[in-house]
Each structure stands twice: as C-alpha cells, then as structure tokens.
C-alpha cells in the first residue's frame, strides 16, 4: 500500500505490531472494553498502554484517525459513510481520517440487525448510525478530558474543531495526535452527548471526497482476485452442468499432465484443479474427464417453469395481506382490469467474479476476501478446516460489486486448502462463465393483478397474486404462514388507500438456487404494482401522478389490515407518513410533470418504498420506429432520513438506475433442459455507456435517522420507464426484458 493510502488493507494485528515496534512507537488507541477474542490476543501480544472505550476507531500520535469499518465495501461507499459518522462526532478533520476493515469478530462487529457480522439488506448505515456516533463522541470526550488534565482548565471552555482541541482563553491548542496518549488513560465516560443533527458539518456535507477514490483510480486497490502470497496456487472448480447434479467419478490423469497443474482434488461442489497460473488451471480443468450423477438434477427449463407457474397463477395461494373483501368488491365493481406479468431469472453479475485467498496451517486459517457474510465465512471455514472460529482470521478486501452475490465465496477455497493439507496458499476464483452458470439468481416470477373500479372511477379493489421461488426457503425465522416476505416485499405493503386488498403467494420449489438480487422482491413487485396502477389510472381517466397522490393521503399504518410479516419487520413495513407522497410530489415538480413532450417521447413515474426509504422516479423516453427504447432523463426524489454523504447517495441513485435499466431492457437468465443458456456478457447483456440516461437526484432534507440506499434506488426505474413507454406508444410492457433480441418479450 502507498503510504498516503486512505484505506489500510493489512490486518489490524499486523498493523498494530508494526506500529508498536517502530522507533517512535506507541500507537495509542481507543479499544474494546471487552478484552475478548481477537482483541484480547492482540492486546496481550503487542501493546501495554492501549485503552478501550470502543472498537471502532483509534487515534495515532501521527494524528491519523483510523475508523474500523464493520461493514464490507463493494462500492456502496460504506467505508466513507462510517468514517463520516465518526469524524462528525469526533470533530475530526476529514484529511486525517482513514478506514480499515474490521477483522472477523462477531461480538464486536456484528450487524445489529443480523446478529452476525455481515453487510446486506441496505442496513449498514441504519444499524451503525448510533453506534458509530457514540464511538466518535466517546473518543472526543476523552480527548477533551485529556486536555483538561493537561491544561487545568474547565472542560466547558474547550472546543474541538477540525481535529484541533482548543482553549481559546489561554490560547492553548493541541492536535488529536498530541493528546492521544494521554486520552488513553482517561476513564471511559459512561454517558456521552451526541450532537444535535442540525449542527452537523461533515454529515450532509455536499462533497466529502470518498476515501477509496485514490486507490481505485491508480490500480492500487486490492480485491481478493488481486491478492497474492509467495507460492500461491490458483484453483478453478469444475462444477456440475445441471443444478442438483453430483460428482460420480472423475479422471484427472490428463489434467495432471498439463504443465503447471499442481494437483486435482475433489471438494463438495465438484473437482478443483490447482495450478501455478490461471491459464494452466483453466487448461487443466478443460482436460478433466468427469461423470456426473444427474438423477436428482433439475432438468426442467424456462418453458416448463412457465407452464407450471401459469397454472399456479389461476389458483389461490397463501395470503400475505387481506383488507376487506376483495372478491366481493371485484364482483360488484363497475369496471374491472386484469393483467399478468412475467419476470425472468436475473444474474447479479458483479464485475469481480467470486474470489478468495486462503492460507491454512494446522492451527490457523487466514482468508482474504470481499465476501459480505463475514460470520458465515468464518463459521464455514472453521467447520471445514476443523478449527475454532477464533483460529479463522478474515482479512476483508474490497468487493468488486455484489448486488446480492459474494455472500460466501470463500468456503470452496478453504475446502481446497484443506484437501491439499495447506501445502500452498490457494486463490480460488470463478470465471465469468462459472458465475453466469452458478445460480444464485433473482428468481423468475409470474404475477396476476386484478382491479375493480366503482362508477366514479375510484379504485375499490386490488388483488395481486405472485408465483415464484422462496429465496429464504424454509427458515422459520423468516417464513410465516407460508409467506416468505422477500417474495411479497413491495406488494403486500403497498401504501395506497384502497378499501379491499388481497395479496397471495405461491412458492413452488425447484432446483435453481435463488439469491437476493439488489432490492430482492421489490425488483419485480414494484414493477407489477406501479405499472398496473398506471393502467388503472388510465382506465379511470385520471393523470397517473394525481391518481397516485390521491391514494397517498392517509397513513396506511392506521388502516385495519391483515398483513403477514415477522414482528421485527412490522415497524418498517410502511414509510413514515407522508414520505411516499412527498417524494412523489418532489419528483413530479422537478421533472416538469405535465408539460408537453415532442411526439415519440413519453414520461412515466413510479414511487416505491423499500429498505425504509421512499424513492420516486420520473423517466423520459424516446421510442424509435423500430421499437428501440432510449431513456433520456430520469428525475429522482429520495427521502432516506439524514443524508450522511449526499454525493454517495447520488452515485447510488445513478447506479441504481443503470442496474434497473439493465434488467428492464436486457436481463434474463433462461434454462433449457436444466442448462443455463447464457454464459457471459454477450448473452447476458447489461447497460453500456451509450444507453445511460441523465439522472438528476433530489434528496429530501431531513434530520431523522438515516435509512437504506443501496437497494431502494433500484425498484422504481423499471416501472417508471415502462409507464413512459406507455405514454409514448400506448403499448404496455408486461414481460421482461423488453429487448427483442432476448427470449423475453419486446415492444413490437
């Protein structure tokens, strides 16, 4: 790493040891009060004078403030976000702030919503906000106490600003670095006062440079696929060609004859070829002769799934929400509408395929990875290697995108290391084809919606049926009354004031492994809800914006309803009223909703609440004579509580638009006789530069607790664009993707 790097990638243990043994020596920090696990070892090893109010930052004599991020950064900017929160309460200067990833320690670094160490569900800031503020405020109080001791002045006369502790009356001042050693021996305050959010200077600052920009623009940023050790070997795994197939026999003779191939071993997921280089591993893998047992494999393909799902779509499912009596209301309606929607499997396809480096010895396992399920990786590695979790050390590196993937890619690498008895360190990664064929897709779903209008055109009944795999499976912590909330998120909790609502669900079981693709159920439910609502508005002869607005005038939390969801989810099922309406109004206003557009162009909107955040988007499109869709402009409004880093929020919104558009226009994984038909970015197209619209982002000013961004930015773009296409052409997209050169639907 460069010396001016803002992100430390060496392990905390090594960093401390190195720093402590340097001549100028003492790194004084604020460390964990609970001297357990990793920290106990570290403290015993190397440092005497370390004191411990918390595990989230340290201040060194060189005046650097190092924030320890308990969350992995796969591009969402959480390193910068957590550092901002601590720097704010600490009153640090942004230029002195660094970040390093936390080691694996469930007690110290658990996600407070998961109970284990991991990053997901767009809750990193949500669960860390108070915790990191408190960490910063505690450190600040101790620095002030150290200054009080040194200067013998009342603490009330001391101010802290941009990394300087000052006593104005006596003209004394000291940097954090100068006070760090003394601060370490100050008692940890039991109570600290957090700032009034209206006094924030770093949180909400218009442009606070990202801490990872320098490393990522010089090629220095390390991803697991880049990490190396002396004598490292590269492993590729030959996995079954069908989901659910297993290894019968294999012959490695030809493979072992390939120059550079070191070994071939069997692991639980297939056959691993270990070689001196990637090309040798690839050649070795091609040379394998493998027989698979396909007796229990999934051999059906997309057409068979579609037929089954279409049949289920006609039958009542498990009820996720019931308000009033939908069947009766539809039977008595003056007018009814119906529509069905088809959504394909989608690959997460992060740019960095899964990768991990593992070094295994008799009593220690070191893992370098960008995986987000840190506790899961640690537990699995311990189990596979026959070690305790404390013997498994995880060194988190940057993740090259996630979007749901990259939960635990390291376990296979541990298996390989174990199979070769740790003879050399192993870097295991997936090729693009491995990733594309590897499952972990957003499941395919079919939807059927029915609506009833009364004689005045009021929407009186809304029935929504969903068919698709459960992502969370049979986990009793998540499945309630046959409802996997991830299947109905964004459908069962629609905020609209409709007297009769029925949402039901079928969760067919099949052999294609599902995953939580960025925004999970909201990715398809928002599309069905927001485009069908557009149909209803047109049927009622109403403007889609005004129609939605009128349905958002009451707080849904006050409405009697039966909504099936785990208790812990209930407080956040609906947006704080009237945030949904406010973002809708803001987006409409900023987009010039209602102003005329030239022929061939259309404007559409959608509003959606997910991950505690309300987002509205207005899209403007041009539809060519050939049916080609070009999205010109997207105006976004978001209420995510206090905006920690407005520019990171804008970046996420821009990226969310691109991600959602990729799926809307092109995204589809299809199967034929159980085999995935796409293998790379040729068959699985994603958005490119020339297709990127101009995105404008308006963030609602708020001092309330922050809410999720990474995923909430994705759901509205598909329906907003679809509604814009309808406005331009009168044609409704109900089968995704739009692009005619895939197996999906197509405009014409």
């Amino acid at each position, binding site marked *: 790493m460069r010396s001016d790097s803002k992100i430390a990638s060496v392990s905390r243990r090594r960093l401390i040891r190195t720093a402590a043994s340097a001549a100028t020596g003492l790194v004084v920090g604020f460390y964990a009060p609970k001297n357990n696990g990793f920290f106990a070892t570290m403290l015993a090893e190397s440092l005497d004078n370390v004191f411990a109010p918390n595990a989230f930052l340290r201040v060194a004599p060189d005046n650097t403030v190092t924030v320890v991020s308990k969350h992995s950064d796969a591009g969402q900017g959480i390193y910068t976000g957590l550092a901002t929160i601590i720097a704010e309460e600490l009153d640090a200067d942004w230029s002195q702030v660094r970040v390093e990833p936390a080691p694996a320690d469930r007690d110290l670094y658990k996600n407070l919503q998961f109970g284990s160490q991991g990053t997901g569900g767009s809750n990193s800031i949500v669960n860390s906000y108070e915790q990191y503020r408190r960490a910063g405020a505690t450190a600040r109080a101790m620095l002030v106490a150290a200054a009080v001791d040194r200067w013998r002045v009342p603490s009330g006369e001391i101010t802290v600003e941009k990394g300087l502790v000052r006593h104005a009356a006596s003209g004394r001042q000291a940097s954090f670095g100068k006070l760090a050693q003394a601060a370490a021996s100050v008692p940890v305050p039991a109570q600290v006062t957090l700032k009034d959010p209206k006094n924030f200077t770093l949180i909400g600052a218009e442009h606070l440079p990202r801490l990872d920009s320098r490393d990522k623009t010089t090629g220095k940023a390390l991803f697991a696929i*880049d990490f190396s050790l002396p004598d490292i070997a*590269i492993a590729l795994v030959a996995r079954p060609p069908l989901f659910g197939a297993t290894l019968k026999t294999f012959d490695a003779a030809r493979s072992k004859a390939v120059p550079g191939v070191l070994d071939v071993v069997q692991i639980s997921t297939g056959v691993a070829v270990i070689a001196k280089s990637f090309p040798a591993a690839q050649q070795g893998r091609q040379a394998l002769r493998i027989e698979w047992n396909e007796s229990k494999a999934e051999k059906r393909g997309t057409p068979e799934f579609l037929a089954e799902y279409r049949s289920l779509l006609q039958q009542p499912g498990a009820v996720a929400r019931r308000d009033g009596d939908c069947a009766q209301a539809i039977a008595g309606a003056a007018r009814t509408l119906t529509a069905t929607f088809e959504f394909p499997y989608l690959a997460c396809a992060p740019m960095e395929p899964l990768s991990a480096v593992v070094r295994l010895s008799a009593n220690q396992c070191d893992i370098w990875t960008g995986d987000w399920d840190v506790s899961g990786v640690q537990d699995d590695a311990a189990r596979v290697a026959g070690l305790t979790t404390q013997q498994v050390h995880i060194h988190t590196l940057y993740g090259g995108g996630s979007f749901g993937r990259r939960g635990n890619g390291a376990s296979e690498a541990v298996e390989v290391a174990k199979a070769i008895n740790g003879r050399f360190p192993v870097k295991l990664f997936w090729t693009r084809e491995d990733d594309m064929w590897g499952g972990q897709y957003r499941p395919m779903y079919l939807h059927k919606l029915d609506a009833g209008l009364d004689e005045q055109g009021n929407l009186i009944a809304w029935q929504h049926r969903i068919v698709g795999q459960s992502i969370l499976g049979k986990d009793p912590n998540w499945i309630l009354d046959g409802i996997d909330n991830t299947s109905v998120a964004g459908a069962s909790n629609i905020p609209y004031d409709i007297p009769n609502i029925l949402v039901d669900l079928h969760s067919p079981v099949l052999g294609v492994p599902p995953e939580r693709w960025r925004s999970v159920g909201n990715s398809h439910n928002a599309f069905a809800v927001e485009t069908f609502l557009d149909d209803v508005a047109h049927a009622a002869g109403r403007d889609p914006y005004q129609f939605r607005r009128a349905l958002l005038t009451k707080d849904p939390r006050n409405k009697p309803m039966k909504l099936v969801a785990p208790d812990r989810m209930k407080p956040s099922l609906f947006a704080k009223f009237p945030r949904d309406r406010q973002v809708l109004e803001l987006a409409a206003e900023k987009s010039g909703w209602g102003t005329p557009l030239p022929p061939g162009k259309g404007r559409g909107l959608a509003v959606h609440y997910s991950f505690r955040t309300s987002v509205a988007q207005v899209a403007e499109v041009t539809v060519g004579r050939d049916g080609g869709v070009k999205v010109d402009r997207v105006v976004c409004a978001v209420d995510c509580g206090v905006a920690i880093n407005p520019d990171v929020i804008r970046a996420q919104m*821009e990226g969310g638009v691109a991600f959602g558009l990729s799926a809307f226009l092109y995204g589809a994984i299809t199967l034929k006789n159980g085999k995935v038909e796409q293998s790379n970015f040729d068959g699985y197209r994603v958005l490119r*530069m020339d297709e990127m619209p101009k995105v404008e982002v308006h963030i609602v000013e708020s001092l309330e607790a922050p809410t999720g961004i990474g995923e909430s930015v994705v759901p509205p773009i598909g329906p907003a664009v679809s509604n814009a296409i309808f406005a331009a052409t009168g044609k409704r997209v109900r089968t995704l993707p739009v692009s005619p050169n895939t197996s999906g639907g197509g405009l014409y």
Partner: protein
Amino acid sequence: MSISLKLNNRAVKLDVPAGVPLLWAIREAAGLTGTKYGCGIARCGACTVLLDGEPIRSCVTPVNSVEGKSVTTIEGASGATARAVQSAWEKLDVVQCGYCQSGQMMSAIALLQHNGSPTDGDIDKAMSGNICRCGTYMRIRAAIHEAARIKEGLTHAER
C-alpha cells in the same frame, strides 16, 4: 518461453507460455493487478491496456503477439492525459466498487490522446466496450469532459 516487451516503459522478460493471454502475463507473471479480469472474451473492457498507445483487450491478446511492443497498464499510466484522467476521476468521485475503473480509465486516456475535446457521441463510441455494473457511466462521461479541461490547463502550464 520468454517474451520480451516494454511494460510501463521498462524492458521486461516475462516467462510465460506462448498463447497465454496478455492479461494473465501482466497479472500473474509481472504481478501488476490493476488490470482486471471480467469476462475473458473482450466483452467487458475490464482488461483494457494500451498497446503502442492504442486500447486493446488484453484478455484475448496472445502474449506472443506483443513481443517487442510497448504495453501500458494503469500502474504505468503517465503523462498529461493520464494525470488529467486520474485527477478528474478523483475529483468527481467516479468510482463505486472500482473493479472496472482501470479499464475505463485506459479507454478514456486513449480517447483523449486522439481527441482533446470529445463530444458525448465520441465518448459513447470510445467507451461502450467498457461495462460498469455499478453504473458509473454518467460520472465517467463527466470526468472525461473534465479531464479534457484539466489536460488543456496542464498543457498550457507546461508550455
């Protein structure tokens, strides 16, 4: 076999089998990991490097075909254009996960070396071979325009 080339302005001999893609020679034999693997079939641009100043996809370029030629990776990107691109990327905080950005920047450097003030259409043409799954395209576009301005300033300053 041993392949001789100029890598980031230094003469190097890489001990790799002929036919191996240049990408892996750069990453594994030369140990420069700024150049990324993304697809292996020249469909994503993450592996973009400059060969005698022109952008190529190193994942499909046999290493023996660059014998005696000059290859520039992100680590060796230097000169007014490269500096302008890097500072524009940083100024606008283009990156998210960052994995594709070396390739994006090498494509942008090549574009700006040929065309000091590219239009949006020029940018579309030059950059559409580089995928970014995080969707940083808008900022890449803005950063290329910004880099063109910075480069002009640098060039004036150096005169």
